[in-house]
């Protein structure tokens, strides 16, 4: 296993996320926690894979790792490890920090003992997210020191050295990444792995109990910590001037992945510039920035999303009474939207610096191509549940949905997603819709989402007797983010046996009086279950249970069992269009003259379509 290679000074190719895990191991990490979320998941998955790998070899991992129930609990578990003197790491996607923010904001007041790195993986362009919020503002908001890596190599070094910064400041620090760092692979130079500390010891202190009096005493300490952090920032090797060409009065300020585009753009444009590459972006090294402001006539700020650096540079220039011209978002040269790339950065720099852009404008292709958005996998059990619901639900029914693969049920022909805000919002919005409308409501969430934040709104529905049907699509995994375990699985992130918690039992404990447990591969039975749930006055919960087909087929392959494929008898098929037009498994396609076929390459062999064909035309293919 490459990532735990013991040979120092070796260079290996690592994903940005794996590099962070490696850095933590080189710092002797003790406790790592996470709730999976793209683009952060592989940091946690790497810990999990290492733990399982070592277990197989009969060795004990030096760290403890868990997939926590949600980001807030993940942060609390790791914070407690830090209070006990251990080195801790917590990773989550950007919106995860919203969930953890209650703990985060006050944790900064209290400060930490063992070094603690909190990773927020932002997702500009919303590749796999419901928004593209810029979490650098959390660092300003809560007064957290922050590091932003540019390459996997730097990510590893920041994870390694971040623990020292955290311990020196007695403060947790943020390591803020973006998708293009998390999911970029680069050469990483290894250092020695460090032994972890083992068990810690919790020292009691009245300052750890944040009563109002303690909070008032801690707040000035927090501000003083940030002053010390600024001194570290001034001297940090992560903040540096990269001079390109001759001495120049052009300054470019950038951080994170934007630096990569800036560097190549400056080289391609053949201009001379001083690039201030900021790796520690909170607090900013004000002296270092001031020097640049003094030395330059124009400063260009290149950063994705919000004008985080730009506004601070403007404030610094104002305080210095400098006449430097600052270009960026406010001058209209850069956007606050989406991701940057080499084209965008080169184009903007060429306009500001008035030099010719060597990159030619891309010409669009003339042929219209069909779109290829992500879709529920062939054989996904969610499709069968949705199909069953549609058979019994009245036309006006509203379908609040949630975060997970099932969001993909939004696409035609299913169109089973009407409202989505965040993790767990399906049930909360279902309650609100029941208050506000006379429409029927059937909401959907996955099992991992249920445990994450789906339970409180169910209790709310019970307490207020809301007439809603809340569905838990229980496929025994966190599918979208890469099939991580959760409290409903009988093993944990370390590969150890774990207590499996049943959704239906939790729901019963919440006081739900009408509970249906159904297997969606029995489409008729599932439709009947939903019918009964709809007829029930008051909150009903349907647990639709069937494993994610990808997991099921993986297990089958491992056991040497064959995965069947299905085929359509062209004699029997009446081209009624139900399988494509209503069910919509992507393995179906139209052949010549409107004939319908199943693409064997895509079919995952779930067999669900056999039940939906009114003419019995679909059956398992003989051999293969």
């Amino acid at each position, binding site marked *: 296993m490459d990532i735990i290679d013991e040979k120092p000074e070796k260079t290996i190719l690592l*994903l940005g996320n794996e590099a962070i895990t490696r850095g933590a191991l080189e710092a002797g990490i003790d406790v790592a926690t996470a709730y999976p979320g793209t*683009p952060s998941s592989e940091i946690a998955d790497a810990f999990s894979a290492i733990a399982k790998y070592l277990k197989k070899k009969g060795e004990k991992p030096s760290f403890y790792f868990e997939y926590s129930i949600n980001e807030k609990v993940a942060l609390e578990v790791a914070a407690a490890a830090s209070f006990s003197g251990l080195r801790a790491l917590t990773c989550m996607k950007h919106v995860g920090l919203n969930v953890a923010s209650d703990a985060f904001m006050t944790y900064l007041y209290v400060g930490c003992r063992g070094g603690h790195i909190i990773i927020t993986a932002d997702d500009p362009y919303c590749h796999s997210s419901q928004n593209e919020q810029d979490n650098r503002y959390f660092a300003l908001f809560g007064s957290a020191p922050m590091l932003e890596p540019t390459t996997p190599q730097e990510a590893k070094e920041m994870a390694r050295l971040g623990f020292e910064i955290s311990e020196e400041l007695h403060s947790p620090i943020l390591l803020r990444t973006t998708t293009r760092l998390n999911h*970029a692979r*680069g050469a990483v130079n290894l250092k020695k792995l460090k032994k972890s500390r083992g068990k810690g010891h919790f020292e009691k202190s009245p300052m750890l109990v944040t009563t109002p009096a303690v909070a008032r005493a801690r707040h000035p300490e927090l501000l003083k910590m940030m002053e010390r952090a600024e001194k570290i920032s001034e001297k940090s090797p992560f903040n540096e001037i990269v001079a390109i060409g001759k001495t120049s009065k052009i300054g470019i300020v950038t951080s994170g992945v934007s630096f990569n585009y800036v560097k190549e753009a400056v080289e391609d444009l053949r201009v001379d510039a001083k690039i201030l590459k900021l790796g520690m972006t909170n607090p900013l090294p004000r002296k270092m920035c001031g020097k640049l402001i003094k030395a330059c006539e124009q400063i260009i700020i290149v950063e994705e999303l919000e004008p985080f650096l730009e506004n601070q540079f403007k404030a610094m220039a104002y305080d210095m009474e400098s006449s430097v011209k600052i270009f960026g978002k406010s001058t209209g040269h850069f956007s606050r939207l989406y991701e940057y790339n080499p084209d965008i950065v080169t184009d903007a720099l060429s306009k500001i610096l008035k030099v010719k852009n060597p990159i030619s404008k891309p010409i669009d292709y003339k042929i219209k*191509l*069909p779109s290829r*958005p*992500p879709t529920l996998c062939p054989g996904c059990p969610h499709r069968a549940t949705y199909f069953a619901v549609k058979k019994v639900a009245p036309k006006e029914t509203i379908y609040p949905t949630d975060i997970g693969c099932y969001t993909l049920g939004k696409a035609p022909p299913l169109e089973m997603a009407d409202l989505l805000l965040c993790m767990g919002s399906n049930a909360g919005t279902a309650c609100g819709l029941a208050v506000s409308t006379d429409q029927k409501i059937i909401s959907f969430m996955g099992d991992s989402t249920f445990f994450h934040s789906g339970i409180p709104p169910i209790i709310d529905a019970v307490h207020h007797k809301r007439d809603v049907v809340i569905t838990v699509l229980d496929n025994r995994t966190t599918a979208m983010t890469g099939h991580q375990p959760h409290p409903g699985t009988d093993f944990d992130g370390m590969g150890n046996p774990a207590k499996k918690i049943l959704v239906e039992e939790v729901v019963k404990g919440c006081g739900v009086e009408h509970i249906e447990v159904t297997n969606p591969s029995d489409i008729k039975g599932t439709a009947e279950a939903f019918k009964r749930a709809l007829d029930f006055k008051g909150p009903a919960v349907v647990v639709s249970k069937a494993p994610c087909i990808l997991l099921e087929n993986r297990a089958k392959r491992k056991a040497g069992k064959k995965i069947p494929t299905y085929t359509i008898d062209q004699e029997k098929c009446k081209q009624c269009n139900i399988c494509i037009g209503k069910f919509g498994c992507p393995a179906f396609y139209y052949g010549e003259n409107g004939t319908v076929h199943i693409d064997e390459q895509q079919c995952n062999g779930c067999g669900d379509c056999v039940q939906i064909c009114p003419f019995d035309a679909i059956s398992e293919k003989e051999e293969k």
Partner: protein
Amino acid sequence: MSSKTSIVLTGVGGHGVITAANILGKATVNADVNVYVSEVHGMAQRGGSVICTVRMGDVSSPLVASGTADAIISTEPIEALRYIRYASKNTKVITDVNPVIPFTVAVGGEEYPNLEEVFKEINSRAKLYKIDALKIAEDSGAIITKNIVMLGALAAVDVLPFKSDILFETILDNVPTKYGKINEKAFKGGIDAIKSI
């Protein structure tokens, strides 16, 4: 040869595009050349259109600027055209000829274009190499080696800054030993397919 090499790998989620990009990246490290790879994970992997980029040599950005790719390899023909903005006249575009019809055609009323026209348009903007990667993979013993066929084809068009043996060895290092033979056939099949054009 310039000191920067940019390869774009595209296709459909599930075709092993990410694995191919990863292997190509590892081979570049093995060849002692600097490398930076960009991948897509998460939602995009559920059967959607996938793009990865591999940049080698004197590069700082993992992403490719328009018109600067040395090669585009695609496991599906229209996905090659979808990312054609990365190509210039000198770019070598290698694509599998077998369409994978997106569900938006069956249920969304969108249309899958005429393949000959797709190839014509690619050829008018870059140097096109068509191969039947699916068939080569099938003949090698497993259709999942289609991505390895594509890597073989890439090795044969003379854009990589290292010898194809290094790529081949890296492939063998990264697949289970029992599948070595199948992957060898697939890789060689890809090379031969280009040579016979």
